[in-house]
């Protein structure tokens, strides 16, 4: 198996201590005016090195078109650390005494702004048009018409509620007579409390269409609360993905969503979590990661599949019919 030499080790258990509520973080996430944030010309070699380091260690890739975003995030950290050059910052990330905590701080900055309703529309479209019909085709041969989806690392709840809304839209069509169960877990109690409260500000709801806004939300002052229908069939609970004993109880999943969570884990912990996901997924199940997040070098049990505008992972052992299409 090809393995990334993980140069920096992070531990899943620590990540949540550094993770803050996105709504709160947003206050500090104004565009940086730091001098590094002036992208012209070819990508700076040190920025490319930081990009490659992050991909190697965390599995999240910034294509050239997103390098300016990474540059901005690095700039923000550099400002705080009073560093002037990317070279200095790269050295801090690779050689410095605080490299582990600094990498987590940078990853936190990278993951900011990721959380919102209907965050990855192409992934959701692929779920609706390709993945759900595939799953239903297999499961319709079984006596129990039940769908189990797990949002692993659900943070403040936007992801599981989005999934619920997408499934509710199909309640009288594709999912007629199907029962739905969404399990939403996170390590952070505060995030879970927010999720259960289901009240959100402009930032989280920025991607909502007018139709979804009125169908699934109730105004509450300047904020929006998720309507009871979209809160049904979701159970929130605290779970540490590194807790082997409890992870074995998450069986029988049709799909697992784990977006921008594994980036905080070291290779060993990541492999253990992925092994649990593998055991918990049904043979026809799908694992979805965040946009530009990869399992390369982490697991050979899962195989990358391409969906229109999105990627997902399926169990490598599963046999496919037809040339490459199901």
């Amino acid at each position, binding site marked *: 198996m*090809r393995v990334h030499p993980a140069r920096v080790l992070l531990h899943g258990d620590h990540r949540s201590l550094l993770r803050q509520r996105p709504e709160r973080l947003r206050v500090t996430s104004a565009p940086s005016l730091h001098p590094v944030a002036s992208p012209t010309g070819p990508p700076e070699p040190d920025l490319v090195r930081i990009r490659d380091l992050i991909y190697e260690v965390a599995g999240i890739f910034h294509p050239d078109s997103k390098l300016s975003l990474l540059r901005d995030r690095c700039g923000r950290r550099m400002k705080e650390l009073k560093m002037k050059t990317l070279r200095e910052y790269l050295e801090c990330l690779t050689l410095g005494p605080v490299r582990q905590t600094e990498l987590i701080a940078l990853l936190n900055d990278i993951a900011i702004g990721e959380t919102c309703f209907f965050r990855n529309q192409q992934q959701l479209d692929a779920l609706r048009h390709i993945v759900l019909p595939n799953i239903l085709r297999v499961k319709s041969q079984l006596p129990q018409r039940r769908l189990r989806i797990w949002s692993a690392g659900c943070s403040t709840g936007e992801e599981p509620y989005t999934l619920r809304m997408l499934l509710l839209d199909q309640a009288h069509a594709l999912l007629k007579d199907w029962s739905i169960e969404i399990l939403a877990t996170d390590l952070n109690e505060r995030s879970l409390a927010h999720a259960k409260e289901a009240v959100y500000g402009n930032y989280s709801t920025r991607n909502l269409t007018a139709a979804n806004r009125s169908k699934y939300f109730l105004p509450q002052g300047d904020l929006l609360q998720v309507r009871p229908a979209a809160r049904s069939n979701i159970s929130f609970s605290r779970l540490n993905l590194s807790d082997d004993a409890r992870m074995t109880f998450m069986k029988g999943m049709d799909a697992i969503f784990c977006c921008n969570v594994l980036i905080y884990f070291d290779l060993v912990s990541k492999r253990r979590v992925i092994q649990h996901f593998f055991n918990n997924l049904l043979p026809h199940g799908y694992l979805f990661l965040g946009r530009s997040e990869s399992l390369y070098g982490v697991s050979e049990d899962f195989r990358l599949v391409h969906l229109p505008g999105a990627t997902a992972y399926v169990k490598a052992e599963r046999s496919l019919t037809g040339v*490459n299409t199901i």
Partner: protein
Amino acid sequence: MTTAPVGKQVLLQRLDGLRQIPTIPAVLAPLLKYLQQPVEQLDVKKVTDLLSQDKSLAAQCLQMANSPLFGRWHKVESLHGAVVSLGFHRVSDIAMSCGVLNMLPGGKTSLDPVIFWEHSLGCALVCRHLARKINLADPEKAYLAGLLHDLGIIVNLWVLPQEFRTAYDIAKAEEIPLHEAEQKSLGFTHCDSGRLLAESWGLAPDLIEVVTFHHFPEKSSQDGGLVALVHIADLLCRMSGLNYGYDEARQVDLFEDEGFAVLAQSCTSVRDFDWARLTFELDSYLEEVHSLVRAVYRT
């Protein structure tokens, strides 16, 4: 409404009777021939003189030469500057790319020329990138193969515009691959029509193979490496925003793909290759390709 497939015979007849068979722009044939010489024998002035004969092509080339997609980050003002800073072969890639754009029929077509060109250019860039990464084929050859793989669509747009529209509409409505819809409604695919044109142009045998077999790489008679490479790049483009203007409603497992098996015969490292990263890198082409194509198309 279903109509009987027109069949290859009709295609041949129409191609024979057509006065305006799409041709490589006059400038490009001597240019490509000239560039086949060893690099040390090439003269910058000769290349720029050849290109300058077609003012519109020259302007398009200059526009493309200024795109980061071709490695240029600082503005070049002249063809001379483009050849000096990008090199002969990169400029030849650019000229050929513009040539393909200029081969498309004008007026209202079923498949928007801008979308077709975005797909061809995107596929060419992915082929070049992939060839470099897996060290399989000459990257410039891979670029040309990616650029020309869908020549047959140009033929179909010229020769059978109505029938091709029907096939395209079926593909779009049923969200199926275009060649499957062509087979269903025309009785042949753009691979067949592309082969006719590629042969009549006297393209190199390996390029003819790519045009003919890029949807069926396992049928390729020669070393199928280049054909399979184009097949995979084409597939990745169609599953991304560099498709034919619609999403194919399907799931692609590269490792189960027949083309992938052919590619793996030529290059075993593809099994360990980081396909996820390539997919993410492809994302970075999207915006550049979209804006470049629109800018050049207006030139």
